[in-house]
């Protein structure tokens, strides 16, 4: 900081320094001063109301909802609700005795997310780790091997279901997206036209219509006798939808690669496959990582839409918990709980993407 030292080279006293900072940043003029006072007033009021509800009048343990409301006088949060229902909201209808399995699944996914931040692992290593992690998690959820009790996908619910929909969905959409992006840049008009039509069609409609199509229309398009379970249908809709969005991100990465790279690969005599796999895609995908993470965040938030087609994801379990007769209507507590979980994942990923963007931009300079 340039103004941390006075002209004579001495450090100003802390109180004076604070005053100077406030003069510069809070009371820089009439408007700024009014804005500061107004903001302080509003923040204090909102903060007080929140603290009053969430802490001061809150009830931390009670046998049921009625007792909870009686204890708080209706003025505070009833966190006792979460004491009873947090586990259901997190793991839903998964068999109670087996709920260590979805717990391990969640922990493993979180560990993989954290591991992805290690720059040393970026590249094919992290892809292999993710694929292995996804495979282990799906086996853990489904069971039926190594003495694990089999659990049908209709019982998969809560946070693990949300994570599986988002992560498996985007992992499957990714290869499809690369094919679509390459097809859109292809020199063959028929291939290009098909890719453009698909991408623009999907991007022009809301996700919920695609999920509806997958859940209502898909059974019609399959031969008689073939049924696909609900989860797989939603997952398919998700993959088809997000492939179009990811394709546009990949295309953005491809466009940023200088023409010379391609010409050099051609000059070396590499065929199309090797040129893409060894020269173009590694560079294009590296540039595309920050926007890819943004699509991942959007996809994670959009998993909530499967509630509408009847899957039992994190939001759905919360909505279900508040219909229990003994605990009816504690929606602020339930939704605050799931909102914090969604926020934690999305905020973490967006910070990661921003940091990566900065360091990649630094690398190019």
């Amino acid at each position: 900081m340039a103004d941390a030292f006075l002209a004579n080279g001495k450090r100003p006293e802390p109180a004076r320094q604070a005053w100077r900072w406030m003069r510069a940043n809070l009371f820089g003029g009439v408007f700024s001063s009014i804005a500061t006072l107004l903001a302080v007033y509003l923040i204090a009021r909102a903060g007080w109301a929140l603290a009053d509800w969430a802490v001061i009048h809150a009830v931390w343990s009670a046998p049921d909802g009625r007792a909870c409301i009686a204890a708080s006088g209706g003025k505070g949060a009833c966190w006792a609700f979460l004491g009873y229902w947090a586990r259901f909201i997190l793991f839903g209808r998964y068999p109670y005795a087996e709920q260590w399995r979805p717990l391990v699944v969640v922990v493993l996914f979180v560990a993989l997310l954290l591991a992805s931040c290690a720059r040393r692992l970026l590249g094919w290593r992290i892809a292999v780790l993710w694929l292995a992690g996804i495979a282990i998690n799906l086996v853990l959820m489904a069971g039926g091997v190594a003495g694990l009790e089999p659990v049908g996908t209709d019982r998969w619910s809560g946070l693990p279901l949300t994570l599986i929909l988002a992560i498996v969905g985007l992992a499957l959409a990714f290869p499809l997206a690369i094919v679509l992006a390459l097809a859109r840049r292809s020199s063959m008009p028929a291939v290009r036209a098909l890719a453009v039509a698909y991408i623009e069609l999907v991007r022009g409609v809301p996700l919920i219509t695609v999920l509806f199509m997958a859940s209502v229309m898909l059974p019609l398009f399959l031969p008689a006798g073939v049924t696909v379970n609900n989860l797989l249908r939603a997952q398919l809709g998700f993959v088809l939808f997000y492939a179009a969005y990811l394709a546009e991100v990949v295309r953005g990465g491809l466009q940023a690669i200088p023409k010379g790279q391609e010409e050099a690969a051609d000059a070396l005599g590499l065929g199309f496959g090797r040129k893409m796999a060894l020269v173009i895609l590694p560079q294009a995908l590296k540039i595309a990582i920050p926007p890819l993470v943004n699509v991942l965040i959007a996809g994670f938030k959009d998993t909530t839409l499967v509630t509408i087609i009847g899957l039992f994801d994190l939001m759905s379990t919360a909505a279900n918990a508040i219909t229990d007769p003994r605990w009816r209507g504690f929606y602020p507590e339930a939704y605050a709980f799931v909102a914090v979980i969604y926020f934690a994942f999305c905020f973490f990923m967006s910070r990661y993407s921003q940091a990566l963007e900065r360091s990649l931009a630094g690398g190019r300079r």
Partner: protein
Amino acid sequence: MRAFSPGDPRLRAALAQIAVAASVVALAAYLVHNALVNLAREGITSGFGYLYHQASFAIGESLIAYTPADSYGRALLVGLCNTLFVASLGVVLATVLGTAIGIARLARNWLVRQAALVYVEALRNVPLLLQLIVWWDLLRVSAPPLRQAWQPLPDVFVSVRGIVFPVPVYAPVYRWMGLALVVALIAGWAMLRWGRQRRVSAAIAAALVAGLPLAVFVAGGAPLAWNRPVLHFFNFVGGASLSPEFAALLFGLTVYTAAFIAEIVRSGIEGVSRGQTEAALALGLNPAQTLRLVVLPQALRIIVPPMLNEYLALTKNSSLAIAIGYPELMSITNTTLNQTGQAVEAIALMMAIYLAISLVTSLSMNWFNRRVTRVGP
């Protein structure tokens, strides 16, 4: 033209394209065949004839006349109008709010800057569906009962039944005021377009737009009767009302999209390099001129394309209203396909409508974009 040889890349390309096209057609044919077999087995006649059949379901709110005796086609039109209505209001409100927050993100005041940052991070990192349901529950469950309705402003009542507010009593002069406004806008635009002195024409145009409707209003005897809502037994009588569903949907879409728009506006303004401002000031332009002539034209060039995406996203997100029961395109389609079983037609029609909205918005915004970002005057 020389003949193709077996190793010719053009021949290979042609063959590859034929193979791709053929496999897509084959897949489509297979799916359609399955669908026809399945529909025949379930005894469903395909086709859009159902659109003319009587819908027999009530719709809570509608901008156009509708009764359950009307057809499914009419019901779909009601849904489309509701979608367009909530989306266009949402776009305007989100733009205003988002721009204000985006500018607040760049304020010199530290507290204002931090408050804007907290708003953006909190709103865009929580799923929209969750937010919509929370707003809806707030209005439906936690709002005060009818008799103790909350009054944030005189004659505005918020209760579990929604929001009721006063509206002016219609007088014939209002129609003439509307006409006067249109005339004033056209005249003002013409002044700005062909006027010699920008400053003078701008002043005249502003005076016209504000003054002409006002003059008509005064000339018409200034009728200013308000239709105020009054609690009468079990409901409010008079005024206009917003259902909890509509209010929650509009509010939710607005505050969510505003968070994204704020980031677009911020990065747009930040994207204009500092040297541009310094150069403009060095040339002797004052700060207002610098903003209007140098920074904004360049910032708009960065802002407009992603802003278009947000508008389209808002329109598409309005389909989440199905979760809270506002009767827009998606909910009406859902009711229709549950009643008629015409899943393929109903969903295809809905997707075609959304696609058409997207394409029309895209094309018109691209036209606008070319105008604001063109080089030169």
